[in-house]
């Protein structure tokens, strides 16, 4: 008989893990109450760096939530049966990350108490409303998808939902990119390549998270996942990373060669300014190193190689979001004088709230795995 992973046979390690996550979530909650009572003045943002860590976190979660569904749907659309053992984890990860993406916009709002206005007075021409619509419908479809593949398994229903989920996933990434790409006043953002880059980042980071979660689950949650399948997902990441870098290089080249003044100043600010080390560090550690690890057939099959490479890609994706948002705002609006060009460094409130969201993601995954009995095919 298969031994299922239930709360009864949970180890001390498990409870240490859960309680430390709960503590981080509680700290994040406390930081949020501080911010709610004292206003966004407790953050490092100002009228120059209008958006920062919270929005980076928001786009990061949107990206993470986008890719898992493709793996699950590939089984039903392209009949790729080999991914079957990963289907439920991928769904769970997508659903949790999308749920957190939808909520992680709240701490960035000056008046989170007025969030109902979005539904009462929503203006259709605002990309924020497009994003809200796609993210909520994607979240609902993810939840239904998860429901019909775990709690009430129905092959028929899943076959109908899978293509809808894929379309919504792509829409979700594009719309998130358009929030930035359609803003003409920020030369660093205003580019048709933002949405494709969001999609490629979503693929690399989302699939890497799936690899990371699968490897860690088989190590700590006693899930029996064939490493060969995980390595196959790693192969996809190794294919998408160069595409992502290609898109990024395109952005750079069109700005640099055509010598568009504002875009050149934005790019030289990112590559050689105070964010230069972070930028090059992200390119090397978040793209190049993981690419070589995941592309090599020798390292791709090792647990260590998979863990390190996928972790680097996920962290690198967060850095990439940050590197797009903050320098894009810090870079001078050409006619403004220097006193507007402040610096940005996140405060403890921002860091704690973001840490709280990350811990909440891990906590929800741990709970979801237990409640939905994701690993029922476990080793005997």
């Amino acid at each position, binding site marked *: 008989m298969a031994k299922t992973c239930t709360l009864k046979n949970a180890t001390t390690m498990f409870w240490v893990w859960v309680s430390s996550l709960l503590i981080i979530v509680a700290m994040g909650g406390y930081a949020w109450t501080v911010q709610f009572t004292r206003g966004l*003045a407790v953050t490092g943002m100002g009228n*120059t760096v209008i958006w920062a860590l919270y929005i980076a976190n928001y786009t990061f979660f949107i990206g993470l939530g986008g890719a898992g569904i493709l793996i699950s749907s590939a089984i039903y659309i392209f009949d790729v049966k080999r991914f079957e053992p990963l289907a439920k984890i991928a769904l769970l990860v997508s659903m949790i990350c999308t749920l957190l993406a939808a909520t992680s916009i709240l701490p960035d709002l000056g*008046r989170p108490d007025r969030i109902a206005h979005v539904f009462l007075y929503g203006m259709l021409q605002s990309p924020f409303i497009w994003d809200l619509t796609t993210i909520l419908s994607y979240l609902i479809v993810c939840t239904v998808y998860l429901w019909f593949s775990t709690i009430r398994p129905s092959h028929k229903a899943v076959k109908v939902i899978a293509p809808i989920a894929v379309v919504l996933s792509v829409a979700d990434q594009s719309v998130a990119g358009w929030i930035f790409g359609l803003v003409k006043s920020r030369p660093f953002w205003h580019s048709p390549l933002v949405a494709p880059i969001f999609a490629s980042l979503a693929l690399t980071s989302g699939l890497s998270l799936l690899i990371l979660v699968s490897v860690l689950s088989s190590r700590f949650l006693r899930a029996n996942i064939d490493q060969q399948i995980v390595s196959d997902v790693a192969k996809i990441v190794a294919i998408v990373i160069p595409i992502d870098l290609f898109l990024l290089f395109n952005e750079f080249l069109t700005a640099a060669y055509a010598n568009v003044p504002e875009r050149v100043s934005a790019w030289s600010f990112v590559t050689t300014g105070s964010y230069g080390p972070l930028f090059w560090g992200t390119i090397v550690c978040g793209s190049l190193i993981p690419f070589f690890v995941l592309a090599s057939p020798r390292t791709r099959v090792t647990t260590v190689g998979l863990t390190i490479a996928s972790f680097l890609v996920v962290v690198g994706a967060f850095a990439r979001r940050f590197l797009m948002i903050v320098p894009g705002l810090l870079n001078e609006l050409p006619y403004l004088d220097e006193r507007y060009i402040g610096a940005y460094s996140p405060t403890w409130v921002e860091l704690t709230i973001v840490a709280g969201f990350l811990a909440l993601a891990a906590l929800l995954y741990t709970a979801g795995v237990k409640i939905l009995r994701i690993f029922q095919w476990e080793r005997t």
Partner: protein
Amino acid sequence: MVRWGMVIDLDKCVACQACTIACKSENNQPFSAKSDPESRRFAWTDVISMIEGRYPNVRVTMIPRPCMHCENPPCVKVCPVGATYMNEEGIVMQDYDRCIGCRYCMVACPYAARYFNWEEPKWPEPMTQYLNPDKASLRPPGRQGPEVRPVGVVEKCTFCIHRIEKLTAIAKEQNRLLKDEEVKFLTACNEACPSRARFFGDLDNPNSTVSKLASSPRAFRLKEDLGTRPKVIYLAQG
């Protein structure tokens, strides 16, 4: 229909920043202490310096910068809740009771003319007694114009809409249209300008002061290439 606009003559401007201060007191903009970060200061009509060239061949142009009240405002387009809107006289307004504080409008504004209430607005003790009690009534019941803002919302220049409304009401009572001389220095910034560098008026009336000045060969608008079509027109330094 009236279409309000402003002309700022950079030849006459002495960059004294009297407009900035007059605007701050007229529109109840929060006080910033010396310890407050520069990036959270309020100045609906700031005086910015445009630096061209490099030392020693450098030239600095001081430019008073109110909200441009664009004909094609990028801020209005992106607002998810319609808290910022253009009224029928072409003024871009902000409803403090509708705003959710997402700051998308600030991101979209190419002129950095929008300001966010990072904390509860504050004034040193005696100043709280002298806040401007005027209200704008254009779109009730939301708070707008010079009314004191709550924390967490975006605010901006209103072309002193409360003054326009007051004068329009008087003119209506006397059954006549507003005269150009009446509104020429209507806004607080124009009223305070010691060198008479700023003019206000109806851009749709071909005989108004602003219309005549706007057709000058010296006239230009900030960042015209973005297609925002600002209603604040500058006269270049000669």
